[in-house]
């Protein structure tokens, strides 16, 4: 067994998880919040539920997923993840789906609030950048980290506890090759996230901020047909609507019976954060210039928060 720490969870795992922060086995022994083991992960072990489809079946205490031809996962009581890989499957693929399906499920089960986006720590505040898959949020984070003094909290999933604190994830960003080249990132340090996907983990150990950070500022970044960048502060109900739209994987939230809790969390978050909707051009712009615009706006907002 290996022992790790992510999102303030102590995790013991039979599968090595080198992307996470590892801790001395003797510290975690006997008291993990979550254990990950290999075993039989069968759909028939999950009670009947309405939240099911071709490749998943979710009810609060038992969740089953199949990643076709790669692995099946069974998640029990938010405490144990059983992995049953297909023969010959590489460990990187298992890890990627563990990070993107199983860990979020466990966190939602334990009433954490997940937004689809990355997060940084700036001054005294936590800042989240929300957007859907493949729309450049990791590239924006990497651009910001490259230019300035910001500290990195998480990529892709922004996990909040009940007090509105962003929990640090693990020190890696996921980037495509074009972004790695554009940002002039040392390619000797990167690692493919899966053998069949053209996307790489970029280590961010040096910039990693390992303490929780109060979320105060949110940017929702949307590629549009505009030729320039437009930032619009959101107010009132719109804030709630947008936060709801960018909650991580609403299907999991629904399957675990957390819809009402999530709506409530969106309302609380809307009341205590500044939310800005950022429209950026889909093409023909420079990430460093875009990051600079965000940085300038962020400086003003941080001052307002103080």
């Amino acid at each position: 067994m290996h022992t790790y720490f992510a999102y303030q969870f102590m995790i013991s795992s039979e599968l090595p998880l080198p992307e996470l922060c590892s801790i001395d086995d003797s510290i975690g022994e006997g008291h993990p919040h979550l254990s990950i083991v290999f075993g039989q992960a069968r759909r028939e072990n999950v009670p009947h539920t309405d939240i099911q489809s071709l490749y998943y079946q979710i009810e609060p205490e038992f969740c089953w997923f199949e990643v076709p031809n790669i692995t099946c996962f069974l998640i029990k009581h938010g405490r144990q993840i059983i992995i049953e890989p297909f023969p010959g499957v590489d460990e990187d693929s298992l890890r990627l789906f563990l990070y993107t399906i199983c860990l979020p499920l466990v966190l939602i089960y334990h009433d954490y609030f997940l937004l689809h986006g990355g997060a940084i720590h700036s001054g005294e505040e936590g800042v989240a950048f929300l957007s859907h898959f493949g729309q450049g949020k990791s590239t924006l984070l990497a651009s910001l980290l490259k230019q300035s003094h910001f500290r990195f909290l998480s990529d892709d999933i922004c996990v909040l506890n009940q007090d509105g604190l962003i929990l640090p994830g693990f020190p890696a960003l996921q980037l495509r090759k074009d972004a790695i080249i554009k940002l002039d990132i040392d390619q000797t340090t990167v690692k493919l996230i899966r053998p069949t996907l053209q996307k790489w983990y970029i280590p961010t150990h040096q910039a990693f901020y390992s303490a929780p950070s109060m979320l105060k500022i949110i940017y929702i970044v949307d590629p549009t047909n505009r030729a320039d960048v437009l930032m619009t502060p959101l107010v009132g109900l719109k804030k709630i609507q947008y936060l709801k739209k960018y909650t991580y994987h609403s299907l999991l939230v629904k399957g675990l019976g957390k819809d009402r809790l999530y709506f409530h969390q969106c309302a609380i978050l809307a009341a205590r954060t500044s939310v800005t909707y950022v429209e950026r051009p889909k093409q023909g712009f420079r990430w460093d210039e875009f990051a600079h615009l965000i940085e300038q706006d962020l400086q003003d907002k941080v001052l307002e928060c103080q």
Partner: protein
Amino acid sequence: MSVNQGIFWLSSYPKSGNTWFRMVLASVLSQSSQPVNINEINITRHASDRALFVEALGFNSYLLSEDELLRLRPIVYKWYSQKKPQVQYFKIHDANIYIDQLIRLIPQEGCLGALYFIRNPLDIAISFAHHSNITIDQSIHLMCDKDAKIFGNTGFLGMQLQQYLLSWSQHVKSWTAKSNDLRVMCIRYEDMHLSPFTTFKKAIQFLNLDISDQVILMAIEHARFEKLQHQELQQNFREKTFTQKTFFRKGIIGDWEQTLKPVQIQKIIDHHQAEMLAYGYIDEQFKPIRLHTKE
């Protein structure tokens, strides 16, 4: 499976009248006296829409490679055909390719039939160039490329999976060849223009819809090209790519006569001779045929 459950495929090479037909079908099914909004053609789903796969998988399709997704597609389509006790309409631009030289993209099981929209490749070359913001020569090159693909996991990710077009003539063959094993009706874009009532009625009957002539005529009127253009002027059409100025551009037949150079016409004919001859776009001397008379 009953005739009331399964998928009707609305298939075509891009820019061949698929969207126009979907507008007419949406209007026919709504039976409303008002035109259907171009952004509310909700009666059809796009076979490459990533949302379809999220629904089946429970996680985002970006985590799978294009090859992995391609192998999943027949399974997912079969699942959709069995999922709802009703007829569903799926739009598709892929050729009906063999996957791993073994199984067809479109499973026979759960398929109620396929309407295949075909258009003169001489006109497609122009329309596709505008649609994709490329030159006409590039468009012709793509239409001759036996490995042509559009969309997919390149650069920033779009909402559609990779689509396997092949060349224009391979696309036609993949859907219309007898080996296809599907029930297919071929509809010419030019006939939709020249004999709209006869052509749309034939297509609607193929879909097992019992619709009065009056409703079909009204639907054709609502989906007149000028009306679709007018709607697009007033609101952004969400199926428009960001490189396009407008989706509904000219909507005419025979544009090639004014626009294409002789060498471009010859290249298209040389590559797609057999299919152009079979569908009446060239004569037996391999000369392009002009089609201009309206019903």
